[in-house]
């Protein structure tokens, strides 16, 4: 180690650390603290495992009023926090495992942000596959097994330093998730639970009794080692430099200003739905519609129609996430052509039409 000028010479060895079960504000403050330490050259790259007390985490640019049932969170003691990273709102409970990397940008392959996401997610998917499942990267930032999401991810690139993090759904309480997060469903009934279960999975669902925490962590590390060739060593604690930033970061994320970074009203993100009778059956679209940006925030398609391959609908929904209404036609066409879809009478135009009816 070279401490010339008080800075550590860029280390090639990653510090791997598990910071234990913590409330959301401490975990988010640690994200900021590690990012600052790495950015200032005071710490080498860090791979951290995270565990949260039950909480709801917003993406950096999201509005709590739009994305969460805040009354329910209050009544049930579910902490609400804002991540540094982009992406959508998630719930976290002690059964879930979080992982993250914090490093200089140039530690990873050159390329744009999409390539960066792909590289990191492929490393994580490779690791999760060690557990005997077929985990794969699904653009733009998910890791899935047979078309169902097992891990969501998001990142922040702050100058020349990045933090990229993901979840592993070891177990998942879907009814609880539906009470906390807004999803495109009219009622939180068995149909809504089944609808989410078609799109999301967990290690418990995939392999029965989930592997021990250490086994999952070991598998993830193996994936990153093999994919990037990194040298990684466990440490019992974070680098001192990160702890030095922790107090100040905690103060920031505990302030009311932090949660109000984005505070658009719920009325600007209404639930909309429509149904269309088409040759292949009835097609229904349920949408969370961003009236401010004219975007499809989330859409679920359902109905008595039959579409092959089975994962095709989930792929279309992922492609349409955050799409501007003017882009919908092109995205649906591209999905049909790329995925070799057999929709038994349903044409791309039917999907576009039902979605446009819903948001009209």
């Amino acid at each position: 180690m070279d401490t010339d000028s008080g800075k550590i010479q860029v280390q090639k060895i990653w510090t791997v650390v598990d910071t234990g079960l913590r409330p959301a504000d401490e975990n988010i403050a640690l994200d900021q603290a590690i990012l600052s330490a790495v950015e200032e050259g005071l710490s080498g790259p860090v791979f951290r495992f995270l565990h949260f007390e039950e909480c709801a985490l917003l993406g950096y640019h999201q509005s709590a009023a739009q994305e969460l049932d805040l009354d329910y969170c209050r009544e049930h003691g579910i902490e609400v926090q804002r991540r540094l990273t982009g992406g959508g709102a998630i719930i976290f409970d002690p059964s879930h495992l979080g992982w993250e990397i914090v490093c200089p940008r140039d530690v990873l392959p050159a390329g744009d942000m999409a390539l960066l996401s792909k590289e990191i997610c492929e490393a994580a998917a490779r690791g999760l596959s060690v557990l005997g499942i077929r985990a794969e990267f699904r653009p733009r930032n998910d890791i899935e097994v047979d078309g169902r999401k097992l891990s969501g991810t998001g990142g922040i690139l702050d100058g020349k330093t990045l933090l990229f993090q993901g979840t592993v759904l070891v177990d998942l309480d879907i009814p609880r998730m539906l009470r906390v997060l807004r999803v495109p469903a009219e009622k939180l009934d068995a149909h809504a639970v089944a609808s989410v279960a078609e799109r999301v999975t967990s290690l418990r669902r995939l392999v029965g009794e989930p592997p021990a925490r250490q086994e999952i962590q070991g598998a993830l590390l193996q994936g990153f080692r093999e994919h990037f060739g990194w040298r990684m060593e466990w440490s019992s604690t974070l680098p001192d430099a990160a702890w030095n930033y922790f107090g100040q970061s905690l103060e920031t994320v505990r302030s009311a200003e932090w949660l109000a970074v984005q505070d658009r009203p719920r009325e600007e993100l209404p639930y909309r739905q429509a149904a269309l009778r088409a040759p292949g059956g009835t097609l229904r679209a349920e949408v969370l519609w961003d009236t401010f940006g004219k975007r499809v925030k989330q859409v679920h398609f359902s109905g008595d129609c039959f579409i092959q391959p089975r994962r095709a609908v989930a792929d279309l929904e992922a492609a349409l996430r955050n799409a501007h209404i003017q882009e919908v036609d092109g995205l649906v066409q591209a999905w049909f052509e790329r995925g070799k879809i057999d929709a038994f009478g349903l044409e791309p135009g039917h999907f576009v039409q039902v979605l446009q009816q819903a948001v009209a």
Partner: protein
Amino acid sequence: MECNGCEFRAELYYDRECQIWVRREEDATLTVGMTDISQSIAGKILHVRVRRPGTRRPVGKPVATIESGKWAGPVPNVFDCIIEMANEDVLEDPNLLNIEPYEAWIARVRPADGVDVALQDLVTGDEAFELYRTRCIRDDIHCERGVR
């Protein structure tokens, strides 16, 4: 002027990494936007947040943040300034930054120490193009514009 399909406008000012462009306005303010290089690296931009008008942003504290493909990140700030206004069109439709990066400005700011001091650390004209070209080649950046 261009390099690897990345448009460059010689009349604007740039930071030395060519991440942002800056335009001098007649009322002693500066307009800030993202370069073609930055929008191409970011990919499709879904969110833009600009600090409230009247907020002071010292060097290193971003004027705005953006999000693309679940990546959040600051729009770098290289001079001490006060936010005057955000471009409402871009707030409503952030994808404009991908479609027309030099028309779709992000924020108008008032430099705390005056325009001339703020522009001292920026580059323009041939000197800027040389840095722009070097960055495109060094990082193998090829620009693509967003379409709708």
